[in-house]
């Protein structure tokens, strides 16, 4: 009989600036922070240390001094594992891949309970220096990086194309940032919680035109530990949990930009992965109650929601401006505040998406609760959404 995986608990650090400078007299140590979350998440799940047999981590950033961080954590926690101990890496999808590793150990029968977790500390690095690294990640290092391109420049070019093709306005696109900040104001894990006006977003200096400072991701540190279990374990705990209904992945065999001219803003990989996830779950986009999408810039939330058919093509910016993607709207997106306001510690951002989905589906999201939420969708990505990892999650009460 095939197994089903459930999320039974979590603990998360509020996104923010936690990393201490190298010269600090008192340092904040990544392994101390993450171990604290492991203890907290285990208690939240209601399981014991001896139940856990997989540690599925994200690779820490290069600023984390401790290396072989995964096996170090197994030692620090004094946790022997029969499933696996690993550190995943896959650009923006990294957190999603750590989550997959935990799911796979459960599906393969190697573990009954697995931890998907990670810590991403990078806020002390200067933006221009970080971009020296990220420009090498988002294109051919000899044929694209030498033009001095950055990850968010791709988003800006997507925005230019979207406005050209759909007639969407700057204001409509910027309204995504206003909406997400309003959601973040209700989220204790969010980095930026002071409400924003549209004028404030539009009046910020341009970073990559047409996008301004509040439409591109902040610098964030964060840490998350999720507890995953085979569903029979979850059932035995006697409290609400989240069932993974379906999962789909697609990589279009393209890194950032296709050398064959295509519709760059259609996000084909996400469309394909999303369709597969709906089909496997036996549902359609209209059945989804909320979405937590990987969207580092305003435009990407619009494009991703259209590719997932949560919103008709070309209507994403209009819907955002009309409030139809806000809490209480047709399809609430980024109820956590999203990457722009909840925060964006890149390697673990997808783990924060699962955290929000758990809160919504257990009915513990407080003031930002989506009324009677039963089905949620998360998406993580690579490149310019050249690859997508989609999960459909269901609350079990």
């Amino acid at each position: 009989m095939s197994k089903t995986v459930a999320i039974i608990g979590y603990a998360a650090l509020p996104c923010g600036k936690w990393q201490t400078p190298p010269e600090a007299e008192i340092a904040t140590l990544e392994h101390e922070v993450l171990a604290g979350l492991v203890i907290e998440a285990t208690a939240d799940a209601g399981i014991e240390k001896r139940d856990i047999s997989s540690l599925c981590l994200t690779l820490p950033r290069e600023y984390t001094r401790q290396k072989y961080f995964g096996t170090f954590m197994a030692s620090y926690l004094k946790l022997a594992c029969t499933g696996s101990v690993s550190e995943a890496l896959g650009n923006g999808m990294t957190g999603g891949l750590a989550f997959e590793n935990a799911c796979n150990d459960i599906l393969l029968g190697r573990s009954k309970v697995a931890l998907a977790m990670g810590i991403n500390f990078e806020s002390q690095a200067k933006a221009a220096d970080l971009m020296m690294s990220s420009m090498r990640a988002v294109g051919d290092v000899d044929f694209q990086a030498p033009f001095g391109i950055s990850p968010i420049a791709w988003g800006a070019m997507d925005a230019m194309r979207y406005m050209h093709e759909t007639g969407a306005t700057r204001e409509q696109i910027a309204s995504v940032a206003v909406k997400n900040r309003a959601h973040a104001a209700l989220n204790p894990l969010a980095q930026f919680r002071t409400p924003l006006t549209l004028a404030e977003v539009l009046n910020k200096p341009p970073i990559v035109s047409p996008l301004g400072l509040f439409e591109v991701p902040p610098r964030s540190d964060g840490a998350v530990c999720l507890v995953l279990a085979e569903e029979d374990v979850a059932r035995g705990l006697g409290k609400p949990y989240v069932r993974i209904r379906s999962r789909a992945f697609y990589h279009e065999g393209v890194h950032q930009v296709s050398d064959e001219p295509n519709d760059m803003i259609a996000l084909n990989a996400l469309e394909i992965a999303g369709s597969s996830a709906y089909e496997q779950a036996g549902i359609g986009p209209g059945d989804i109650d909320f979405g937590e999408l990987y969207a580092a810039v305003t435009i990407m939330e619009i494009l991703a929601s259209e590719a997932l058919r949560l919103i008709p093509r070309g209507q994403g910016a209009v819907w955002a401006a009309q409030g139809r993607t806000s809490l209480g709207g047709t399809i609430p997106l980024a109820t956590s505040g999203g990457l722009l306001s909840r925060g964006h510690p890149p390697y673990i951002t997808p783990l924060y998406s699962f955290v929000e989905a758990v809160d919504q589906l257990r009915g513990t999201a407080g003031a930002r609760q989506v009324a009677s939420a039963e089905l949620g969708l998360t998406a993580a990505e690579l490149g310019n959404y050249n690859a997508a990892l989609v999960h459909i999650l269901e609350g079990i009460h």
Partner: protein
Amino acid sequence: MRDYAHPYPPRISDFTKTFWHALDDGRFITTRGARSGGLTFPPKPFSPHEWGEPIEWTELSGQGKLYSWTTMYAVPAAFQREAPYRVCVVDLDEGIRVVTRLLSDGAAPLDSPIELVVIRYTDCTSFAARLLSGAET
């Protein structure tokens, strides 16, 4: 022409030197599958269309259309002296999409015709796009 060294020069391999030497001569070339005819960019020492087929070099017109662009105000550390600058995605007439700099400063409507031009740094050669109707900076 730039009177300084490239801020982040490309590495040149025994294979890609053919591309860079042609660029030096003002020609924009790439590879294609000899059987499938499938073009690819950057040039590759094999055909990604049909892995086993032989490849050949072919010259591109360097003319195409502007698919999208942005002005980058926040740039990687090595490129500070050039900021702000424009980068773009262009579709060449032969059906190849490339990423490069956009030289034009003024209005640059999408889908406008462009041409690729050679940019010479003191240590290497690069390329950029400019609007066919516009002035070079």
